[in-house]
């Protein structure tokens, strides 16, 4: 097993009053040591559910991991006992959440919140854990760690709190950090700072990162590999250059087209992707994107395409990549590289 994390054919569904929601419908990807993988897609496409499945944070009741495997350093997390998993959580794999305003316990000093994980996993006593926590706060770019240590979350700004959450996540030198939209809830200048911090720490420690985002700018900044998710499946995966410059899936192209282009300096209309994602209570048999896709063919509605290899490491789940499909001019012109 060369890779740090290998997710194979993961399927997760939720029971609800209306029936079964198939949130994740066969997702596979892997993350190598020291690698940053970006997971891109719109709300409800299964990004967060995938992340929480890896961390086993999904609710025990009503949620069902139906199929697949998640191998971390060769061991299948899904077959692990609760106790083994607790050993791993927070020490080998850790997570930074989307909303720093609500992700810290409001009635506990931030110092305690950082050091409790250290005490649990590293077996340090309180004084040693405090020293380590102060070091982490400093590392996370928080000024006056000594006084911040004894403060409560409400005394910190959103950006500061996200730094604290990053410090908590990195407390036990994890091999894999899952960052679930770490900058979504922050304003733009703070976003840049947090991304810089994450990049910095990633270089320093060689931590692998699974970065969930819907911001393609963040992807370009941080990641080496990208998977694009739509309606619970991976529609395209490849290197950052593959996805951002040579996308081979109409959904990816749509995402890129809906980004504002600042470079030309001229006003340009954004091209939205019309329509909404399919209902996951009863997902379509064919390609889930077919209903919104301007290139949709008959086969798209009838059969879910397999992942076509575009070139080594770049896969697209779109019938247009079948040799028999008509050649679409946009594919050559897709992305922004030709302008």
């Amino acid at each position, binding site marked *: 097993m060369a890779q740090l994390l290998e997710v194979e054919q993961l399927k997760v569904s939720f029971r609800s009053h209306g029936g079964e929601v198939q949130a994740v419908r066969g997702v596979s990807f892997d993350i190598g040591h020291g690698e940053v993988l970006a997971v891109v897609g719109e709300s409800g496409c299964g990004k967060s559910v995938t992340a929480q499945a890896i*961390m086993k*944070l999904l609710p025990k009741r009503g949620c069902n991991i139906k199929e697949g495997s998640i191998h971390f350093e060769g061991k299948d997390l899904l077959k692990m006992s609760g106790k083994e*998993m*607790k*050993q*791993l*959580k*927070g*020490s080998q794999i*850790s*997570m930074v*959440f989307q*909303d720093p305003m*609500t*992700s*810290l*316990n*409001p*009635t*506990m000093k931030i110092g305690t*919140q950082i050091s*409790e*994980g250290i005490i*649990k*996993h590293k077996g340090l006593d309180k004084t040693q854990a405090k020293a380590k926590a102060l070091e982490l706060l400093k590392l996370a770019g928080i000024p006056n760690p000594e006084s911040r240590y004894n403060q*409560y979350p*409400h005394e910190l700004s959103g950006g500061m709190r996200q730094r604290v*959450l990053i410090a*908590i*996540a990195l407390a036990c030198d994890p091999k894999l950090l899952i960052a679930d939209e770490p900058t979504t809830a922050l304003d733009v200048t703070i976003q840049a700072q947090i991304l810089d911090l994450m990049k910095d720490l990633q270089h320093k420690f060689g931590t692998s990162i699974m970065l969930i985002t819907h911001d393609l700018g963040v992807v370009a900044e941080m990641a080496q590999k990208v998977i694009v998710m739509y309606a619970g499946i991976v529609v395209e995966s490849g290197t950052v250059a593959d996805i951002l410059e040579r996308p081979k899936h109409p959904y990816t192209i749509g995402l890129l087209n809906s980004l504002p282009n600042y470079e030309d300096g001229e006003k340009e209309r954004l091209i939205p992707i019309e329509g909404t994602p399919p209902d996951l209570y009863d997902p379509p048999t064919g390609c889930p994107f077919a209903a919104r896709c301007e290139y949709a063919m008959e086969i798209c509605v009838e059969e879910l395409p397999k992942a076509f290899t575009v070139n080594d490491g770049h896969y697209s789940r779109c019938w247009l990549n079948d040799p028999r499909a008509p050649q679409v001019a946009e594919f050559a012109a897709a992305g922004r590289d030709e302008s």
Partner: protein
Amino acid sequence: MKFILKRLLTMLLTIWVITTLTFVIMHTIPGDPFSSDSDVLPEEVLNNMRAKFNLDKPLPVQYVLYLKNLASFDLGPSIESETRSVNTLIAEGLPVSALLGFQALVIAIVSGLLLGIIASLFHNRTIDYAAMTIAILGISVPSFILAPLLIKFFAVQWGMLPVASWGTWKHTILPSVALAAGPLAIIARFTRSSMLEVLKQNYMKTADAKGLGAAGIVIKHGIRNAIIPVVSFMGPLVAHLLTGTFVIEKIFAIPGLGKYFVDSIFNRDYPVILGTTIFFSVILIVTLFLIDLSYRLIDPRIKLSSRGD
């Protein structure tokens, strides 16, 4: 400090308002302490007795006299029991009532919290339903039904505990349990609903992601955040339990404070009515004050300010 001073002043003012209102309302009830004796006693005797308790003076004068005594913590004589003052009544009854109340409080808080937390952890499962059934029973079965039932089984049938009256610690068990049932149920329900809210919060997920044990997550991160609604309910509860309850003390023949609250009204025993009301108010106001202070300890986001109280 400024907050505390301001609060103390407000508390004094509140006590004064309560005293005045009670005084006025009490005297508007028809009859006086001796009206039931008016058939048997000659008019002169009645007048003498009224004079003894200053009841022949105009109301404003009586009011000023009462306030004067109150300022020196003298609640006056009891008209009904000639030899004892209201101060003595309270001094004799309070330790009994307070002991019962304190035990009931401990039972109610400890089991109520436990029941509520367990119910929330097993949300919508059998254990949850069972716990909430107990809670509904506790709220809906009145103490005057629960108490005789407890006596019937634990005292009469199984002979484990004394039937009634006051003496050893064993005597306190049944009344404490009977007293605790209602508050226990309410605390359990409050705890359950606020705990369910807390369990959904993102910081609980953060704690889970740290790899902490399930019990650690609930104890260290859950309870403190869930307890505020429960604590708010505690104020009136503490005052009620500590000052004794009429029904339970009557059923178990316990020489507590509870009976004076009710008896004094029927006897038009003016000093006892006023005395017990003021005493209860003081306990209530002080508990509420302490609870306000405790919010700050529980949740650091709550700031004590002297504004808007």
